[in-house]
């Protein structure tokens, strides 16, 4: 046992040779670290000794989207290729917000991040900056959405990308919340959600999205993330999606975003139909998640 531990330590230090820790911090919500390795800088949250990469940039090529899920987060452009107002819940390193700003200079991008420490790290280490049109709010996402609804705001593109290190906060997974998001979308708006649930929670999560939005694009990578693309009154027909992709494909190339490939990941309705919906009254998502992990 001790030998094994020793070997692990050696292995860890060898692997860590090229890895530099630029910043660590215990914020109100999590442990944050910024690590640079082989020219790639990542924001990590540590929960229960398991680290997860939240955001990465390639220092030599900052436009490149490093994490494999990030290009797919732009799949909503197939539904609305010219968003004017974008809302991103969960800032991370701000890489997605930055790409929106570069793709569509001058459009309004609101980012909401619960943890002020993450906002500071995005500014200091990930070239994130606020401008007149690109603003970040240190709020709980649900509170922001409710307040925005009450003010009569509408968004063309809403990206749900808020994680607490374990999974998505439970009050951001319920049918009521998704309905609030649906109402916050403009007529030709699109909602994109980054998820990575499995088994029991996957079924409930999918059924909940379906109960609010009807059919959605269910973009699944073989490992890990699943990106949901949904529209407030059902998705446009496939021809429209294809035409939209063609209209914007060239602009996306330099970010390594390939919408044709992204859309090809659609797996349709592959969840158990009768799964129990997540609501404000019933939302034990994190408990279901740990159950699912053990029995599958």
């Amino acid at each position, binding site marked *: 046992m001790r030998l094994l531990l020793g070997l692990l330590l050696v292995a860890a230090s060898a692997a860590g040779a090229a890895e530099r820790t630029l910043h660590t911090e215990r914020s109100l919500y999590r442990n944050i670290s910024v690590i640079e390795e082989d020219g790639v800088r990542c924001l990590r949250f540590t929960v229960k000794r398991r680290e997860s990469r939240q955001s990465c940039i390639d220092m030599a090529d900052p436009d490149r989207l490093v994490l494999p899920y990030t290009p797919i987060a732009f799949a909503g452009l197939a539904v609305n290729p010219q968003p004017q107002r974008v809302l991103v819940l969960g800032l991370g390193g701000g890489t997605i917000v930055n790409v929106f700003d570069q793709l569509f200079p001058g459009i309004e991008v609101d980012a909401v991040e619960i943890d002020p420490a993450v906002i500071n790290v995005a500014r200091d280490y990930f070239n994130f900056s606020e401008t007149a049109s690109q603003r970040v709010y240190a*709020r709980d996402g649900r*509170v922001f959405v*409710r*307040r925005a609804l*009450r003010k009569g705001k509408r968004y063309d593109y809403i990206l749900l990308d808020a994680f607490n290190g374990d999974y998505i906060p439970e*009050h951001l997974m319920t049918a009521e919340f998704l309905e609030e998001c649906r109402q916050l979308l403009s007529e030709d708006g699109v909602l994109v959600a980054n998820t990575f649930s499995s088994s029991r929670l996957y079924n409930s999560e999918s059924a909940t999205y379906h109960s609010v939005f009807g059919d959605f694009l269910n973009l699944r990578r073989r490992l890990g993330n699943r990106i949901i693309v949904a529209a407030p009154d059902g998705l446009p027909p496939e021809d429209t999606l294809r035409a939209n992709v063609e209209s914007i494909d060239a602009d996306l190339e330099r970010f390594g975003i390939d919408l044709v490939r992204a859309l090809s990941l659609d797996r349709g309705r592959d969840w158990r139909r009768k799964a129990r919906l997540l609501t404000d*009254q*019933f939302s034990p998502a994190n408990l279901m998640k740990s159950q699912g992990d053990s029995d599958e």
Partner: protein
Amino acid sequence: MTAGLLFLLVFCGGFSIMSIELLGGRILAPYFGSSIYVWGSLITVFMLALSIGYLLGGRFSLQNPSLKRFGALFIASALLTLPLLLAGNLLMDVVFEYVEDPRYGSLLASVVLFLLPTIALGMISPYAVRLLVDHRDESGHVAGKLYFVSTIGSALGTLLTSFYLVLYFEVNQILIAIFLALLLCGATAFASGFRQAAV
């Protein structure tokens, strides 16, 4: 026999307090989020309510202490959870409308929804001390046992609610169960109060 019953009722009171507090986090989240200050608001209000409850419970025990009055505390607790059960969202809508800052919003909403029932629940323990103590010598011992039972109830209420109940039931279903349990506690104390008076 009566002593055993009193301990059981105090246990239920302790259980209810923490079960409601835990559900409180769930109830507030759709309006005020799950930021650290939402839990701060909740805990503040529960602590404040309990402190007031202890004070009032002790005061209430000075006048003709009886099992019937003890039962009335449970009935009152149950009834005071009704606004939370029947009009929780309505009340939070109003708070959300008028208070922009989610810190003060969650604090005010906690006061509106949880202060009164928790005060009533807090009155139970000191009142039970009065009913159980016969001699001054044993007062500390009795009080210690009562706090023990009440706080064990709270611990179990926290554990069962957060580990299991929310996994199978809706928030309101759990609240209704607590409401009914408190009514039952009140009725039991009332009934044994009558029997005692008859004997």
